[in-house]
């Protein structure tokens, strides 16, 4: 039987992600590298008590809608709907914007493990590579070193960092085929190829599914063996069905810009 990892709906793709799962979510700060439709499906499923592993915790769909992103949901959809028990994250809050995660954090409604961005990437890669841990200088002499084994190598101090194990990795790519081979577009690789294969199950949301053989073998970034499911975004972005009216989006954008200015004033920027 031919190998076929294509699933036909986002709901089907996330059907076995249950309460308490540990999930990696690809992307960086901007929404275009994020598996937006998988996050929406996961939210629809109503899962609770997730542990998430991601670079950041989202700005919210309204910000991205105003920026013209056709699929605007980011990590915020899981944050604002209280689906997260604990976030393992490099940049939980924005210097310029109070996001919903910060509000939950202040209210004591979410746990956090903050990890330097490169250490986060390497801990994910270690899980993917079957490495039991690694030593880095990053974090030495800071709060990050607390509770970690130290070692002197060549006269310099290092700390031991361990792999992050996860049940699912939700990633986004540009094009994929039925074997799960993936290519990306521009700066939208970010954590996506890093996370592919790092969890027990990797689910790739792609802009387009192409025939096997259509992707140039020289250009494939993620070989299919790291990917378990491939699901395509709709050709056209769904209408917003009154979820947010333009007036609401404008209001939110205005508030975002006001917050931004306030933060800049506070920081003493001129």
């Amino acid at each position, binding site marked *: 039987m031919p190998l076929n990892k294509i699933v036909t709906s986002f709901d089907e793709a996330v059907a076995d992600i249950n309460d308490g799962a540990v999930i990696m979510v690809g992307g960086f700060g901007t929404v275009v590298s994020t598996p937006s439709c998988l996050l929406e499906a996961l939210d629809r499923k109503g899962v609770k008590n997730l542990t998430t592993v991601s670079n950041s915790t989202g700005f919210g769909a309204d910000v991205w809608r105003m920026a013209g992103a056709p699929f605007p949901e980011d990590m915020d959809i899981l944050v604002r709907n209280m689906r997260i028990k604990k976030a393992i994250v490099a940049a939980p809050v924005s210097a310029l914007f109070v996001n919903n995660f910060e509000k939950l954090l202040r209210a004591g409604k979410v746990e956090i493990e903050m990890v330097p961005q490169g250490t986060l990437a390497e801990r994910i890669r270690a899980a993917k590579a079957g490495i039991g841990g690694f030593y880095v200088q990053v974090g030495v002499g800071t709060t990050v070193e607390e509770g970690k084994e130290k070692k002197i190598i060549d006269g310099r101090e290092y700390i031991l960092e361990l792999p992050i194990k996860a049940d699912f990795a939700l990633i986004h790519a540009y094009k994929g085929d039925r074997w799960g081979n993936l290519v990306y577009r521009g700066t939208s690789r970010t954590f996506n190829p890093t996370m592919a294969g790092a969890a027990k199950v990797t689910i790739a949301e792609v802009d387009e599914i192409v025939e096997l053989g259509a992707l140039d073998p020289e250009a494939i*970034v993620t070989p299919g063996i790291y990917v378990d499911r491939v699901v395509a975004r709709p050709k056209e972005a769904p209408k917003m069905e009154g979820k947010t009216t333009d007036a609401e989006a404008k209001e939110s954008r205005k508030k975002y810009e006001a917050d931004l200015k306030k933060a800049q004033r506070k920081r003493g920027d001129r």
Partner: protein
Amino acid sequence: MTTKADLIKKEKLDRQIMALRVAKEFQDCNVVNLGIGIPGLAANFVPAGREVIFHSENGVLGFGEITLPGEGDLDLVNAGGQTVKVAPGMSFFGHDESFVMVRGGHIDISVMGAYQVSEKGDLANHFLPDRQIGTIGGAMDLACGAKKVIIAMNHTTKDGGYRIVKKCSYPVTANKCVKLIVTDIAVIEVTKKGLVLKEVAPGWTPEDVQVLTEPKLVVDPKCHEIELM
């Protein structure tokens, strides 16, 4: 005698001029990572005749200028989320590779903002004091891994509080990592002998700068007005 209150109100360099001064540090063929804010502006001021390769944490080397708002491709952004232009020689990679470059010493210069820098070059820039919350991002990796860390920041807090301090009171991002501090009134080098004042803004004296700096500054015998060209 000028009082501290006078100095707080006194005219200082603006952000663009600070960025221009930072960019003078970029040598030919350097690989440079720019943080958000004033550091990012330095991309526009690479000295003529020097080829500089910009690195961004989200997985790109050698990108072009920042586009006008609304004109770029959302799949081509710098770490601050600003859309940038395609440039010859540009390359893309994932996050693990991006930080292999950072930790592995492949980045020549990292320019970041800061809340505090100590006289030993300890850096505090991941804790947001006005919000009492931290966000590490890539700051710790860059502070540890880049060959030269340059800090671009205002010399004091808005109400004149020291930001160049004897010892950081905010949580430290990395110890003994800062090599050069470019502020809105001075350029200061971190050396084994202490903080050496190299340049002052027009209209400022070394004595003025000392008033707004907690640790004792060593005034370089060649200390001069900031040169921008």
